């Protein structure tokens, strides 16, 4: 029994997204595909305990889920058209189950999840649920909203996909850049490190990092001509490589400048470098490639023992041109302060409208740091207080309290 449980779990983990994508791409009904697959997984527990685990568990699940979809469509009758579609795919699915692998439609599913007709706030949760089978409660926890609300948003989005007839296809060339941007944005939101390592880490989505990296890797493999996909993958790998160094043994927060480079993951940094180099060869720079390049300069410290702040400054100049986000502008100010002195950095921070940063932790942390360097007390203490009060991570809060003194 244990063994069957494990087999069902393994099949679900490995194949969930592929099965949902395959079924939904043909029925355009994500919720229906999910229900059918859940039923198939339940049936597997029973049947596999009795008859043993089939040779191709994935194919078994696909056949069973497809049968459920057809039964339900027949039963409802109201959607006569879909019965026809589903019957048309029966033969194809039969072939698919006898072949070694059925077509991988996950890329199409990603583009559906991040379609402009879907509320942008639900793009990321939808991907996590459809491609990984994460339940609404876990996604809700990561996004800091109630499970009921998250459940409702997901249901609404799936209904919209079905009823609005959103096509399961990879967008055509001229549409691709804009549509891809939404997909990348949603994956990055799952990773959730806005402007990491200054003093603030957004830990709330931290537990979705593996899923995000996995999605980006798949996207980069499937769209080798799109450099930003590789850029995003490289960026997340660089950040992830430093994760073990971000906390001391006793849980203390360690800022980037004080991290032990021996704790950085070499294999991840190497994969990041190769990915970024391959993306850069396409000679179409973008936001994620630039952010990855900044992290690449930081990673260089593992070899050279120093940080090339001039290089980082010019990369931030480029980033602010490409995507003038608050995070990019604050990052540029911090880099300029390192390269040319705190006065210059402070001047850039002062250009940012204060209303925009009233609740933006990173701004206050960088401001406090620069004011302290300029020996401008008590302004520095005030800025530290704002940064401390806006910290979500208690390790960061303790770190800043110590800095403030």
């Amino acid at each position, binding site marked *: 029994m244990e063994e069957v449980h494990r087999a069902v779990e393994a099949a679900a983990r490995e194949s969930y997204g592929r099965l949902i994508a395959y079924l939904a791409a043909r029925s355009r009904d994500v919720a229906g595909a999910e229900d059918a697959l859940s039923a198939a997984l339940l049936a597997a527990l029973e049947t596999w305990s009795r008859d043993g685990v089939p040779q191709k568990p994935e194919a078994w699940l696909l056949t069973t889920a497809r049968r459920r979809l057809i039964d339900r469509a027949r039963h409802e009758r109201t959607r006569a058209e879909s019965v026809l579609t589903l019957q048309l795919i029966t033969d194809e699915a039969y072939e698919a189950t006898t072949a070694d692998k059925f077509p991988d439609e996950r890329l199409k599913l990603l583009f559906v999840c991040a379609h402009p007709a879907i509320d942008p706030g639900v793009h990321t949760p939808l991907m996590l649920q459809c491609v990984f089978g994460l339940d609404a409660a876990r996604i809700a926890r990561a996004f*800091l*909203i109630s499970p009921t609300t998250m459940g409702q948003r997901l249901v609404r989005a799936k209904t919209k996909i079905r009823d609005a007839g959103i096509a399961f296809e990879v967008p055509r060339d001229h549409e691709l850049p804009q549509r891809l941007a939404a997909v990348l944005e949603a994956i990055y939101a799952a990773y959730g490190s806005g402007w990491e390592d200054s003093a603030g880490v957004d830990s*709330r989505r931290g537990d979705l990092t593996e899923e995000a990296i996995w999605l980006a890797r798949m996207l980069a493999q499937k769209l080798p001509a799109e450099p930003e996909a590789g850029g995003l993958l490289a960026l997340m790998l660089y950040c992830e490589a430093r994760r073990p160094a971000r906390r001391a043994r006793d849980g203390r927060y360690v800022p980037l400048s004080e991290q032990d480079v021996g704790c950085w993951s070499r294999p991840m940094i190497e994969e990041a470098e190769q990915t970024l180099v391959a993306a850069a060869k396409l000679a179409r720079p973008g936001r994620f490639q630039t952010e990855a390049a900044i992290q690449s300069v930081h990673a260089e410290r593992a070899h050279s023992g120093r940080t090339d702040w001039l290089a980082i400054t010019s990369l931030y100049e480029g980033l602010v041109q490409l995507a003038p986000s608050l995070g990019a502008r604050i990052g540029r100010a911090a880099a300029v302060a390192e390269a040319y002195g705190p006065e210059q950095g402070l001047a850039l921070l002062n250009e940012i409208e204060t209303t925009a940063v*009233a*609740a933006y932790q990173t701004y*206050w942390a960088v401001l406090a740091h620069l004011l302290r360097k300029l020996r401008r007390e008590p302004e520095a203490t*005030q800025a*530290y*207080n*704002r*940064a*401390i*009060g*806006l*910290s*979500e991570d*208690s390790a960061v*809060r*303790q770190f800043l*309290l110590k800095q*403030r003194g």
Partner: protein
Amino acid sequence: MQYMMLICETEDDFKARTNEKKEMFWAAWRAYHEAMVGAGVYITGSALQAPSTGTTVRLKGGKRLVQDGPFADTKEQLGGFIILELPSLDAALDWAARCPAAATGAVEVRPVLAM
């Protein structure tokens, strides 16, 4: 919209008000208060004395039933409240997550009923 944050603290949190951790404890709270005021969202709020100082009153059949202690015996107890003026629940949840008690106890967020 106004939201109330009900700050539920653990026994350790209450102890930290006066023991050797008190400086860090109050520094975090003062900074949190300053950040809310600085962001222009703070309306009012107060810390409460320890749960053991609470007294609960109920009227049963017209008779006063007075009980020593808080109304419910739970692991976390109400330690204070804050009312914020914010555009949305999401913004309120962001502030709740930054509350020092969120890492140790719990912060319940409720919209204030407009009368």
